[in-house]
Each structure stands twice: as structure tokens, then as C-alpha cells.
């Protein structure tokens, strides 16, 4: 059997605080700062042809 896929453990205390600070920073300072419209359009074409 291959290595099992890990689940994400609950973050606590200092690790949690650092994670939340980073998440809040990204939301307030970096939200939508990377133009991903070309990749989204390309993904749309892939999904339109997909057989799911």
C-alpha cells in the first residue's frame, strides 16, 4: 500500500495565530492581486470538453 494521504491537523496556539495573521494579511493586502483570468479561461475550455 502506498503512503496514506495525510489529513490536515487542527492548528493551535502560536501556529494558529501565525496562520490567521497570514490569512488576514492576504485578504486585506493581497486579495485578487494576481491576474489569473487566462488560466481560468483555459480551465473553462478543459471543463467544457471534459467527460466527467
Amino acid at each position, binding site marked *: 500500500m502506498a*503512503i496514506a494521504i495525510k489529513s490536515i491537523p487542527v492548528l493551535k496556539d502560536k501556529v*494558529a495565530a501565525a*496562520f490567521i495573521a497570514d490569512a488576514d494579511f492576504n485578504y486585506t493586502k*493581497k486579495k485578487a*492581486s494576481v491576474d*489569473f483570468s487566462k*488560466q481560468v479561461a*483555459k480551465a473553462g475550455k478543459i*471543463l467544457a470538453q471534459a467527460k466527467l
Partner: protein
Amino acid sequence: MTLGDCILIPYDHTAISNCRPFICANDDLNEFFSKDSINYSDQLLGKTYCFVSKEDSQLVVAAFTVANDSIKTTHLPNARKKVVQERIPHSKTTRSYPAVLVGRLGVSKEISGGGIGSEIMDFIKAWFIDPKNKTGCRYIAVDAYNEAIPINFYSKNGFKFLFSSEEQEVEYLKLKPTDKLKTRLMIFDLIILKS
């Protein structure tokens, strides 16, 4: 070859029987995609998709497994820590950030090296920021093999380690300090992308 030359299909019994064996450069990945991925799917623990070549429908170009997950946090904000601990010792702030976990991702040995792995990462990111996505998803998480090539690959694609050190991750996973960490959790914050 690019993803535009491929069709996305579920990697299920039909795909496995219709295609030639999917072989990538990592033995553990080969074991996972040949045996374990179906079990994950049967138990609804993860769903595997693959890209097959339009020209050669028996060629699996790449495969990846995704599962719903979340990043949960629990802590006391510093400013309130002292007061709260004095008055309500068990009160904690909890948050949950929805995420999709890319459990495994592999590219065929026949194809690898041409940048298709990064194309797949872009596809997965775009898939989950699509306004048609029915649920919210803030993060892409990956469970990357703790080896230079995969770690560099995910770093190049904007992923950061969830834990600042291997020692911290070992502690969180409740492993023995002497255990080798076989995989590392890495994350990408989708909030930075503009669709």
C-alpha cells in the same frame, strides 16, 4: 504536449481498463494510482481524475486525487489571552478555512519535464476559484512527498509549508521525533487570484 491536447476524465475502473498502465517517476505514486486510488474513491475519501491524450486515448498523461478538507485553527488572541484565561479558562477562538486537498498528483514518465504539472496546478486553482463553484474554497493544500523535486515543484507554483519546520510538523502529527517525515503539507491561498 499541453493540457489542451488532453481530455479530463475520472480515473475509475473504466479508465484503468481502457488505458495502458499509468507509470510516473515515483514508485509510491505508481502504487497509489494502480491500487489505492480506487479504494479512496469507493470510500468517498478522495476522487481521482486523469488527463488522457486526445491523440492516443490509451495514454494517461497525468492523474491527481482531490478531497474536501479544511484548515482549522484554535487559539486565544494575544490581547485577550490573559483576561479570558482568568475568567473563562476554556474559551478559545476557532476558525475553519475550507480547502481542497490534492492528495497525489503524478505525470506520466512519457510526458514529464514539459511543464504539464504546473499547467495542472493552474487548472486546479482555476477550477476552485470558478464563480460556478458551488461551495467556498479558500486554500489548495497538497500532501507533497518530502523530496527535493516535488517540494521545489510546489514551491515554484506558489505553495508554502503549512508548518514552519519538519520538527513542528512531526510534533503535530504525533510522530516520534526520530521518524522521518515522508510528506509535507503545503498550502496555496486562493484569495490572491483574480478570476
